[in-house]
């Protein structure tokens, strides 16, 4: 049960790469925090600074009340699960799990008990005497988790721990990680670029873009109320539909399209209208004529992709939109659907700054 606090944390690599550009964050005791963002945005760097594997260029990191900037990784009382597991190949599963405890001078009987308990919890009890190369990917992942669990650290750190597993196992492990974290109630920080993992695991989600926190909050808040164009387009799958528009005082305008129901928007600026695929609906009075391109059947629902007739973006005719609908909706290809949307729920962003205007 520990708090983690980051104050204006900056990381500049020796080659000049500015990976983290000033991050402030307060993580409550027992919270599950997920860092999410595109590749290269600095998620791993931030996590590795908390772990002590990367020097902090500027700023401060506290765990509970202790400043840990210059504390060695082994003394920070944090445990990390790596993407490629990073098991010690010459040690058995038992050896891997007990190594950290041995080095901390714990008595053997106590180590044995912890290892056995953790192994049972993770269902790897049968493999304790095997070497890592005799295990499947999923089993190795469990061992890596076990190695972190037995330490009973103040903070768990995960760097894309599931990205090497197949889709089914990933879902299974995701649920298991969540369950374990609930049970142990250890503050956890989890890095991923998988949407679903981010949405389902997090108590709070930090969307990182280019070394800065774009927005942080409960996943559902980020989905419903993104503060920037970046967050809106990053969170949500399938992606939000974006349409470049201008405001003429009453309508949002793009090509032949005139969308009513908007007010109080700047006249002269380039804007972007964002509509989630599930906010669109079939509506004979609707404003979007959609020519059907592809119909994806996902089981419970269908995703219909197509071009909006009359909308353009920088010379691209027929902007692509995605429409999420029910299983029985199967339009012919190249037929045209008329779609409407609820202007109340639509989002409008400033195209240049990316800020949300309404």
């Amino acid at each position: 049960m520990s708090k983690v606090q980051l104050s204006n944390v900056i990381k500049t690599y020796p080659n000049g790469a500015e990976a983290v550009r000033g991050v402030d964050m307060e993580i409550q005791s027992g919270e599950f925090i997920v860092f999410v963002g595109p590749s290269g945005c600095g998620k791993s760097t931030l996590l590795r600074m908390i772990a002590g594997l990367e020097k902090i260029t500027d700023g401060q990191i506290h765990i509970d009340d202790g400043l840990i900037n210059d504390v060695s990784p082994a003394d920070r009382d944090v445990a990390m699960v790596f993407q490629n597991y990073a098991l010690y190949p010459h040690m058995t599963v038992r050896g891997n799990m007990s190594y950290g405890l041995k080095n901390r001078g714990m008595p053997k009987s106590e180590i044995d008990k912890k290892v056995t308990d953790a192994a049972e919890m993770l269902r790897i009890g049968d493999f304790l005497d095997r070497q890592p190369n005799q295990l499947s990917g999923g089993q190795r992942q469990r061992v890596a988790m076990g190695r972190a669990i037995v330490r009973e650290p103040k903070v768990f750190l995960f760097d894309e721990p599931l990205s090497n597993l197949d889709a089914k196992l990933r879902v299974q492990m995701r649920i298991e990680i969540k369950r374990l974290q609930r049970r142990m109630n250890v503050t956890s920080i989890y890095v991923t670029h998988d949407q679903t993992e981010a949405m389902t695991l997090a108590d709070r989600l930090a969307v990182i873009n280019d070394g800065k926190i774009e927005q942080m909050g409960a996943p559902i808040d980020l989905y419903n109320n993104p503060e920037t164009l970046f967050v809106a387009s990053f969170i949500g799958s399938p992606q939000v539909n974006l349409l470049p528009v201008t405001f003429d005082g009453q309508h949002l305008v793009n090509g032949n399209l005139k969308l009513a129901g908007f007010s109080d928007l700047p006249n002269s600026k380039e804007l972007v209208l964002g509509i989630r695929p599930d906010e669109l609906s079939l509506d004979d009075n609707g404003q979007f004529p959609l020519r059907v391109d592809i119909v994806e059947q996902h089981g419970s629902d269908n995703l219909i992709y197509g071009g909006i007739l009359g909308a353009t973006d920088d010379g691209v005719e027929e902007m692509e939109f995605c429409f999420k609908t029910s299983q029985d909706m199967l339009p012919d290809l190249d037929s045209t659907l008329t779609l409407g949307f609820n202007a109340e729920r639509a989002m409008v962003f400033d195209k240049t700054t990316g800020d949300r205007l309404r």
Partner: protein
Amino acid sequence: MKRVQFEHSAIPYLFVAPQIIIILVFFLWPAAQAIYQSFLLEDAFGLSSQFVWFRNYEDTIFSDSWLQAAGFTIVFSAIVTFLSLALALLLAVKANEVIRGASTYKTTLMWAYAIAPPVAGLMGNLMFNPLIGDMYKFLNAIGWDFDHKLDSFDAGFVVVLISVWKQVSVNFIFFLSGLQGIPKSVNEASMMDCRSPTRRFWTITFPLLAPTTFFLMVINITYAFFETFGIIDTTTRGAPGGATNTLVFKVFQDGFRGADLGGSSAQSVVLMIMVLALTVVQFRFIERKVHY
């Protein structure tokens, strides 16, 4: 069940033929000759020879000079192997930590590899020359009454020093690549599990290098046994009084300097058997322990 049959052709045999011919001509044939010679006793002028069963073996192996050479070879090989491995490992670990200018550093350390043993020996000879040798002067200046022409320990010191210096660079290259083969994340995981760098080295790095170390041990023992010939031949030539004779050097001396072909052949055969035994021990017993 249908079996897949590939067509046989002579071409693969053609490709391995040169290798086989080389082994036959340069290895098996001389080895057979040595075995044959080791049962013969030649007269002083090499005109006639006589089949003497194992007399050559008895005469050489139980002689004091052979036992002395055998003793020296074992101690010498052990010291050279240990020191050149230990030094190379130390250098490799340090070089692996260097980030800035790493390649210059590494190239510098690898240079000695390009020097042939006899050349290394000649250089050593100059350095230990009583008249102009800097090492000779230096050792005497720091209070060591150093004279490798007379003192057998000092002579041993010279050949060990040169042999180790020459071999460190090879070992260094292998250790360095071995170290770089250890995944970064494994090192990082161990940093979070263990505070002490020394302990991390002995519990993680060193065991993970075991296959490299084993391979290098085999290479180094072979080096100390055979290739140091060039160094000994250009420095001490076995002096003083045979104190720095290795078994290989003695084979050469007895055969070519002493013209005792029979005795020299018997020694080579014994050497062959020793190497064979060593190889078996290494691969049978040690190798099993080092692979994970």
